[in-house]
């Protein structure tokens, strides 16, 4: 299988190179009108078919690796290092992306799969798709060069073949790790597609904004994958690392967050181009930057430039990535300079207070946040270069710098949708903002009443202050969005005679993009409320003998026993804790500590009891070597569940935004006979 996999990768490289060169040559012939022995259109089609065949070749290689994992082929070094016989089936899949070579293969396979779909849909716009396909082939060539020459996944083990492998990193032996990395990679790799379209459209001086419409679904789906991937990573960190948090501003986390920020900025500013023909250059550079940031993230974390608790695979491939990024950047700059006149837009705006300006400010804040994170991630390297000493840029830095920026962004999330396009009047501002402002101050009062006070006990708590602002602004944003929904639904309800709920549903269906976007904003608000809850986390650590108690918040934990278990993969120790509230037993928690046999590495398995109000989070830290008693660390983390609930709402909103809106014709099918279809204002405009 190793020979088959290696051969498949070589074939894939040849096909990708042909796709790039033949495709590029054919497009050059078409652009210049030159003649050749073969018609350029036919040549371009052979390039496209090579791309399709390339997908089959990379799929063959990926299959070979999976097959080798499942058949315990320890003659392959990668399998020996990342798997073992006792590894459960689902985690054998995880072995594919637990190491450098495997994760590069996953990247190449996903890129080939995206390219496969793109090339099959080429009839939408043959020339534009040919450009995009050739650019994707260029990216694919880079990954296949890496896989063939720098990080071959099928390299054979030198010396005697061992009976068993080293096993999978224990941190990765968690159900979410089976889906989190592919999800994140789908997000990373997916941004190659809008990048390829943007660069291709610029190269061919594509008229109009059609390329944006073509790539809208790609971009939104990619953004969704990246969002879901980031949140799954947060949940994994929360449930596995056992420190009671979910986001540590680790370089790997930052690496995934940066393209998310620029991608989100792109999704917003691209509407300005679609609606008003503005910000064409800006949008092109946003998508270029997003793609480059996905590469930079990989370079930072996989190349060993920065250390990270999440970096499971490091090697010296950073040089390859730096060279590739340099080439991509040079191509982008060259193409932009050559065709920048094509990107001249209708740069006009009627007012500082308008939907257009809110999009600009939104972009400003998102990009500043991206800069802050990039700056913080790279500053240790910069510091070492300038002063010769490395410094740490950890959570305290980001909490002080990024949180205020995030709160400003949250504020814009509420303000933007309330502002009309073009310009607004003072009267309109007063009318739209009165309810959100009331909600904001009401929340401040309620927060003070329940004890969320930044000056509690005579000391200023920045955590409480930020939480108070987050709750208040969230309430205002939620009120703003809800009132927008209700206003539109009220119009439909009056015109169709249906109730408000149906009115809301019809309203959403008639402009899925707009109202799907609002639902995503609601999800973001819910997430922010959950994040703000971290200001009130409490923790307690105690050695618990049999029938000893510890108290945290309203709960009392009693140790009622400790036990051991073992299977072929690991040995484990459990502490059994009965949890009481108001003197009544509520449930039992069993935090666990495992020692994986193949790697001899220990791992905690946190016990979490989740409620909407808080999570009771219990870690079994091990036993005191002097007394032999278990050490238990308990956390009471308020509102954490809201973060995961927010993600569900974001996913739901994105799906709605992806569904085509009802046209007046289809809408009429849902209106009772004899009723008129409202055409103003709720059916007007928007896609």
């Amino acid at each position, binding site marked *: 299988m190793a020979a088959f996999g290696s051969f498949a990768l070589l074939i894939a490289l040849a096909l990708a190179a042909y796709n790039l060169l033949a495709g590029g040559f054919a497009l050059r012939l078409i652009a210049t009108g030159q003649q050749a022995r073969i018609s350029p259109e036919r040549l371009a089609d052979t390039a496209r078919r090579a791309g399709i065949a390339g997908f089959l070749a990379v799929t063959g290689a990926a299959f070979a690796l999976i097959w080798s994992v499942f058949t315990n082929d320890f003659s392959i070094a990668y399998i020996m290092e990342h798997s073992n016989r006792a590894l459960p089936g689902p985690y054998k899949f995880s072995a594919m992306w637990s190491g450098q070579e495997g994760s590069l293969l996953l990247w190449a396979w996903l890129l080939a799969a995206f390219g496969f779909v793109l090339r099959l849909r080429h009839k939408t716009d043959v020339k534009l798709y040919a450009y995009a396909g050739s650019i994707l082939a260029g990216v694919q060539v880079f990954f296949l060069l890496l896989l063939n020459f720098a990080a071959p996944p099928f390299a054979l083990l030198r010396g005697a073949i061992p009976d068993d492998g080293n096993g999978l990193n224990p941190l990765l032996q968690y159900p979410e790790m089976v889906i989190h990395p592919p999800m994140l990679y789908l997000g990373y790799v997916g941004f190659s597609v809008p990048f390829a379209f943007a660069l291709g459209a610029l190269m061919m001086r594509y008229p109009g904004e059609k390329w944006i419409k073509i790539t809208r679904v790609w971009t939104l789906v990619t953004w969704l994958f990246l969002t879901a991937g980031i949140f799954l990573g947060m949940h994994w960190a929360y449930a596995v*690392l*056992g*420190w009671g948090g979910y986001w*540590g501003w680790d370089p790997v986390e930052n690496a995934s967050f940066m393209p998310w920020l620029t991608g989100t900025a792109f999704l917003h500013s691209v*509407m300005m181009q679609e609606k*008003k*023909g503005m910000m064409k250059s800006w949008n092109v550079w946003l998508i270029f930057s997003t793609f480059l940031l996905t590469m930079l993230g990989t370079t930072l974390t996989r190349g060993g430039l920065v*250390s*990270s*608790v999440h970096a499971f695979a490091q090697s010296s491939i950073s040089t390859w990535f730096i060279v590739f990024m340099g080439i991509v950047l040079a191509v982008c700059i060259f193409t932009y300079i050559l065709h920048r006149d094509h990107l001249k837009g*209708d740069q*006009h*705006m*009627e007012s*500082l207070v308008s*939907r257009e*300006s809110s999009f*600009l400010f939104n972009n*400003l804040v998102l990009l*500043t946040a991206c*800069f802050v994170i990039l*700056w913080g991630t790279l500053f240790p390297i910069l*510091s070492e270069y300038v*002063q010769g*000493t*490395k*410094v*740490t*840029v*950890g*959570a*305290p*830095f980001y909490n*002080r*710098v990024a949180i*205020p920026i995030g709160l400003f962004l949250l504020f814009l999330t509420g303000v933007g949708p309330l502002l*009309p*396009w*073009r310009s607004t009047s003072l009267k309109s501002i007063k009318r739209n903002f009165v309810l959100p402002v009331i909600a904001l101050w009401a929340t401040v009062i309620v927060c003070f009443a329940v004890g969320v006070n930044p000056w509690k006990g005579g*000391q*200023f*708590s*920045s955590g409480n*202050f930020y939480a108070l602002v987050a709750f208040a602004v969230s309430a205002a944003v939620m009120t703003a969005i809800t009132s927008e929904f209700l206003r539109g639904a009220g119009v439909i309800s009056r015109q169709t005679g249906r109730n408000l709920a149906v009115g809301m549903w019809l309203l959403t269906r008639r*402009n899925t*993009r*707009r109202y799907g*976007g609002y639902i995503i904003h609601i999800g973001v608000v819910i997430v922010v409320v959950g994040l703000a809850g971290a200001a009130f986390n409490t923790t307690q650590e105690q050695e618990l003998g049999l029938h000893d108690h510890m108290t945290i918040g309203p709960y009392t934990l009693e140790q009622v026993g400790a036990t051991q278990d073992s299977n072929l993969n690991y040995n484990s120790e459990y502490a059994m804790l009965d949890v009481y509230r108001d003197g009544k037993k509520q449930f039992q928690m069993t935090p666990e*500590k495992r020692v994986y046999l193949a790697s001899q590495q*220990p791992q*905690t398995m946190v016990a979490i009891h989740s409620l909407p109000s808080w999570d009771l989070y219990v*870690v079994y*830290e*091990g036993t005191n070597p002097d007394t032999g008693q278990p050490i238990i660390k308990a956390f009471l983390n308020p509102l954490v569940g809201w973060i995961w609930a927010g993600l569900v709402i974001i996913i739901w909103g994105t799906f709605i935004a992806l569904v085509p809106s009802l046209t007046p014709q289809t809408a009429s099918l849902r209106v009772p006979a004899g009723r008129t279809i409202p055409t103003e*204002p*709720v059916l*007007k*405009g*928007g*896609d």
Partner: protein
Amino acid sequence: MRSRWMKVAQATALAVAVCFSMGATDSNARYYDLNHRMMCTCGCAQLVGECNHVGCTQSGEELTLLRTDIASGMGDKETLAAFSTKYGATVLAAPGTHGFDLVAWIAPFAVFAAALLGTILLIRRWSGLSALKAEAAAANPQLETPADVERRDRVRRETGVDGGF
């Protein structure tokens, strides 16, 4: 008018100063605050107050030393400096506020301020261009080509009261 702006500026400066002056006074709060300003040196890349990975040999030692330093009456600055001397500069979870390290703190706010100013100037410039165009169109309607009219109508249609996103 000017005095009102001065008051607003003073209030903002005060709020910012308060936000960034986190001074816990009692020893438990100081212990928590300081152990969240230092890293665990075992290589786990976590704050020492949050490191709980099984078998960590460093976090316990650091936390014990921190308790001792606080009990001995050392101030925050001295404690952080002592840790930095013992474990190296990377033990501090955030850059300091002297020398090149200060750049780490200033750059984000400088970039934000510059970008904010740039955005406002850009909007004002585009608004000015818009106004000039509108004036020219009003003075000489022939200047508007059919394409201009079509584009304007489309923009108005798509960005109407409830149109678009």
